[in-house]
């Protein structure tokens, strides 16, 4: 009786081990590759141990492209975007979840409809608008357009539906104002979905490519994904070591954020699926 279950178990583990090696290997190789010189990167079989070229690659990269200012811009834009999105989506989602007002359903449908609109359709009108504001090359040109996006509002609403209305009423009876109910009761109880939405928003903005590419013309104001993509192109010499070093720089912040918020992330994602 013990035999087959043991076999089954070890087969499962074997599969998991192979799968995890397959998914971790590219990342591992990226870190190793960033420490190799260009002519070593493409050696077959691949080198699997780091070498000492990382600082060379980084300084070479910093000489040819403003990598540090791009990192700064990416951090600034993604952080402000994430925090502002969290607050705005939470407050809008709360209104849709817990208040009754005229036209609520229609408004909610309108919000959802914007979710169906492909991003590319809005590009040219948005471009005209932002140029009209004179915001070319400014970080707010990237932060503003996707703030309080429909997905975030919808996600927060679904999660907040499960907050017991009695709790809000109790606070009201105790004399709390509507805004302090939101700040002191709703926000703290919504931490898991906020963390989940936070990670999603941060990653989305961190990897945002098309819009920053279009609106941030100046190289000093550009973001990391745009800058990195410009390092590889047909018809020119590609410095692969530098590209890999740049990729390492761009991936570390996301990695840290994810590890920090991981435990909220999973519980937050499923939060809205079961109505309490």
């Amino acid at each position, binding site marked *: 009786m013990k035999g087959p279950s043991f076999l089954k178990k070890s087969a499962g583990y074997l599969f998991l081990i192979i799968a995890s090696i397959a998914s971790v290997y590219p990342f591992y190789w990226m870190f190793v590759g960033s420490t190799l010189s*260009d*002519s070593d990167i*493409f*050696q*077959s079989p691949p080198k699997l141990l780091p070498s000492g070229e990382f600082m060379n690659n980084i300084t070479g990269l910093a000489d*040819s492209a403003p990598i540090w200012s791009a990192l700064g811009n990416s951090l600034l834009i993604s952080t*402000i975007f994430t*925090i*502002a999105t969290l*607050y705005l989506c939470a407050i809008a989602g709360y209104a849709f979840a817990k208040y009754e007002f005229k036209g609520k359903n229609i408004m909610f449908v309108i919000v959802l409809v914007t979710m169906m609109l492909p991003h590319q359709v809005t*590009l*040219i009108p948005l*471009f*005209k608008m932002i*140029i009209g504001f*004179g*915001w*070319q090359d*400014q*970080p*707010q040109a990237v*932060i503003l357009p996707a703030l309080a996006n429909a997905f975030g509002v919808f996600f927060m609403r679904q999660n907040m539906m499960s907050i017991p209305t009695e709790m809000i009423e109790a606070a009201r009876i105790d004399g709390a104002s509507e805004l302090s109910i939101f*700040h*002191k009761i709703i*926000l*703290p109880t919504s931490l898991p979905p906020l963390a989940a939405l936070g990670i999603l928003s941060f990653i989305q903005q961190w990897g945002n490519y*098309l819009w920053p*590419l*279009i609106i941030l*013309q*100046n*190289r000093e104001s*550009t973001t990391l994904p745009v800058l990195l*993509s*410009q*390092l*590889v*192109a*047909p*018809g*020119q*010499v*590609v*410095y*692969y070591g530098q590209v890999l070093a740049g990729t390492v720089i761009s991936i570390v912040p996301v990695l840290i954020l994810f590890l920090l918020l991981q435990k909220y992330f999973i519980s937050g994602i499923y939060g809205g699926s079961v109505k309490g």
Partner: protein
Amino acid sequence: MKRLSVWLSLLLVLTVFLTACSSGKDEKASSTEGKATITVASWNAAADALTEQIEGFNKKYPDIKVEVLHTDTGYSKVTPALAAGTGAPDIIQTQARDFPAFLQKFPDQFVDITDETKKYKDDFIESSWKSVTQDQKIYAMPWDVGPTALYYRTDLFEKAGIDVESVKTWDDYIEAGKKLKETFPDTAMTLYTDDFNLYEIFLNQLGGSYVKDGKINVNSPESEKALLLQKKMKDEGIAINVHDGNGRIPALTNDKVASVILPVWYAGTLSHSVEKQAGKWGIVPIPAFEVGGNTQANLGGSVLAVSKQSKNADAAFKFIEYVLTTDEGQKIMLKYGLFPSYTPFYKSEAFNSKDEYFGMELYPFFAKQTTTIKDMEYGPIMLDATKPLKDMIDGVLAGNDVKKMMGTTAESISKSTKLKVNH
């Protein structure tokens, strides 16, 4: 949770503050401006080259301020501005083959520079004027060209007993590839990528065109010949698919390939990315289709055009003139691997220096490969034709009927560009 709300309000304030102070900065900049500022949209190494040009340019024209904007090769940065009619840079770089499509898609967006360029007519390689001319008017300045050659591993050829001098035609080349396999079973003669580079080289070598007399011409006899040659190379096992430019380098590093058919700009990649093979590479003209046939072809090359949205069109042209028609300007271009279309520069000292990696005078060799390059009409289709052309080659390589593939490709390009098909 007081702390959280304090944090949040702090950030909101920060956002507002950021908006306020950055727009303030903007006003200041425009009020102190006394001289003309021009912006140039360009990509990668080309953009780096232009950035390096600014210093020399300002010695000549101290009153013109130049800013280089780094764009992508897919034009996502300039097309919205051209479509919106606002926000475009003063000077725009496009690939030579894409420029006719720009003229068609964005009519009246580029300055007519026919009169200004008249005196340079004979200074540039003749075929390079083709794609910047529409109705006898010139709308852009040819920048670089991509004369193509056969780069080959001298050591591998020698060990396999192949005399490169005897490889006169593509058929010889395929036979040599088979001979190479006998000595080095794991090494292919050459490689190709998932695009239409090799096809375009063959097509141009044969004097074919994508568009002829305003009609789509991808179903021409030249096109068929080009497709069949690439198919033969694949079927005979002498060419391997490495998918993209990044795939070439591991194939070369690990001796999987003994030669490549690519333009002058690949010399830079070889000497940097395959540094360890220095001294092992030779360069010869590409084989001909038949004995004594054309051994020259062009792939790539860019142009610089002045946008009609520019408020300083004269200053913009002065910059183009400086970087493309002076020795100082072209010297910097060459440093970045951009092979000039401007022929007076071929006499300069910088152009004639010896290349250490190849052990030969690299650029004079390529200058000789520009004399019989055939005119090629790209037509206004290239921004829409990329995918159909790729599909056509994939289809032919997979064994589909060549004539049928050419026909469906011509129809599909016709559908998106509204151009008629040449029958």
